[in-house]
């Protein structure tokens, strides 16, 4: 009777197994070779990186106080306007993207809108809108609203697809019209989560507004970018710390709201 045992390998064929290991090793070494690592440049950059990190020890919010304040006000305005606009548009799209409510052609159209909105990362969309509308917060609002539509519509549609169909049946059986069915049988089942998701999206949009500002879509991101270009790391640190503070505050706020909606 044998007394040794080892687990069977994930790939049973030894030729295939060792062939894959070898292939991966060759690919990695070749790929590393194409990176052209320049150690001298790396050492030089390390200094600059350290200058940036150490700036967090002495952030300076006062030197460019006005720009920072205006940047944050603009970002918050962009965030709120874009979130409200996006949610408003996501409502009909989300209803249309729910398989249990919408007829097939409408379903495909709305799923298409959701897919397009979710395929492109915010930063790419922002670059496009900056080209279309020029630098500034309008491009930012358009970007965030565009991203919000896909996010909210997809999650709303999935919630609607998961509702209890018996409640819908019961309301239809009373002779209610289609909008009354939506209002009485669908809305009560998805509303709490929809509000929670809206607050969650609000805090995502604030974070995103800082990122897309870097490509010219206005807000605090633009201020941050300017400070980087001037090598004013102490100002940049102050901005980043404030962003972190605001994000944590909104995240806390949204978790409290979601908790209370249960």
């Amino acid at each position: 009777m044998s007394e040794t045992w080892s687990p069977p390998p994930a790939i049973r064929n030894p030729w295939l197994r060792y062939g894959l290991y070898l292939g991966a090793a060759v690919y990695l070494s070749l790929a590393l070779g194409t990176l052209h690592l320049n150690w001298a440049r790396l050492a030089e950059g390390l200094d600059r990186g350290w200058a940036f990190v150490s700036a967090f020890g002495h952030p300076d919010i006062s030197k460019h106080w006005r720009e920072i304040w205006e940047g944050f006000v603009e970002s918050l305005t962009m965030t709120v306007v874009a979130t409200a606009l996006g949610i408003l548009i996501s409502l009909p799209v989300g209803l249309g993207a729910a398989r249990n409510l919408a007829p097939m052609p409408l379903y495909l159209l709305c799923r298409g809108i959701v897919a397009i909105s979710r395929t492109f990362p915010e930063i790419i969309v922002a670059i496009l809108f900056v080209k279309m509308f020029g630098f500034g917060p309008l491009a930012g609002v358009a970007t965030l609203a565009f991203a919000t539509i896909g996010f909210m519509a997809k999650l709303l549609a999935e919630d609607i697809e998961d509702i209890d169909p018996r409640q819908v049946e019961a309301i239809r059986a009373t002779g209610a019209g289609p909008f009354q069915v939506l209002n009485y049988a669908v809305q009560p089942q998805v509303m709490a989560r929809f509000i929670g998701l809206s607050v969650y999206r609000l805090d995502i949009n604030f974070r995103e507004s800082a990122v897309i500002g870097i490509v010219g879509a206005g807000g605090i991101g633009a201020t941050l970018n300017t400070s980087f270009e001037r090598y004013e790391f102490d100002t940049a640190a102050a901005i980043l710390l404030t962003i972190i503070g605001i994000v944590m505050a909104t995240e806390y706020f949204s978790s409290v709201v979601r908790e209370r909606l249960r």
Partner: protein
Amino acid sequence: MLSIAGLTKRYSGKHAAQSEPALSGVDLIVPKGQLMALIGPSGAGKSTLIRCVNRLVEPTMGRIVLDGQEVTGTGRTVLRHARRRMGMIFQEYALIERLTVMENVLSGRLGYVGFFASWSRRFPRADIAEAFRLLDRVGLKGMEDKRADELSGGQRQRVGICRALIQNPALLLVDEPTASLDPKTSRQIMRLLVELCAERDLAAIVNIHDVALAQMFVPRIVGLRAGRVVFDGPPDALTPETLTSIYGEEDWSATIRPVEDDADE
């Protein structure tokens, strides 16, 4: 009076062509004020039958007429008007869990009020007064502002009954009203249904699994097997032979023995 003639339902699906229809050629007349129990094994078509009556399930063939009004083959608006005359009561209550008891009861009036009135919850005074009367009648006085998910099973079914009755129906379609309830609550709910139908001269079709409970409360029993009516008669006409023809071979002696009604309520 409800008349069902030649009602056939074939579900569409992969093997629909070969498979047996859920209902085939069902003819039934339910006179005004009559309480009728529909019994039969799971999958016999009981649930399909009552859902065909208000066209939550679209019949494949056949004709349904309620008090002279065609239900089958009509447009959406006429169908909605026909549905107002048919109150439906469900196995798992099918209340809107997150709405209040009052909103659930008033939702029975949706076929009568416009969208904006119902959206802003501004129902006619008469409807609200009737809702309070019904809640009082079923023993839920003072519960109007509770959320439906705060209630017990028996209380929820009472709300379900109010929602059906406030439609001012001529017919109740009742789908396994007691299947989620304990034996005592089941009897209370059945007794309440019987009383309310008598008070309002309502006809009712009650799908029910519990043969003994049906025998205890209902004057007419219809047995359904594989989509066809195989028994139609008073409860004492149910013999072991007829039950075997409905459900298949089994020892029925314990089922038919008269059940003693517990009087404590």
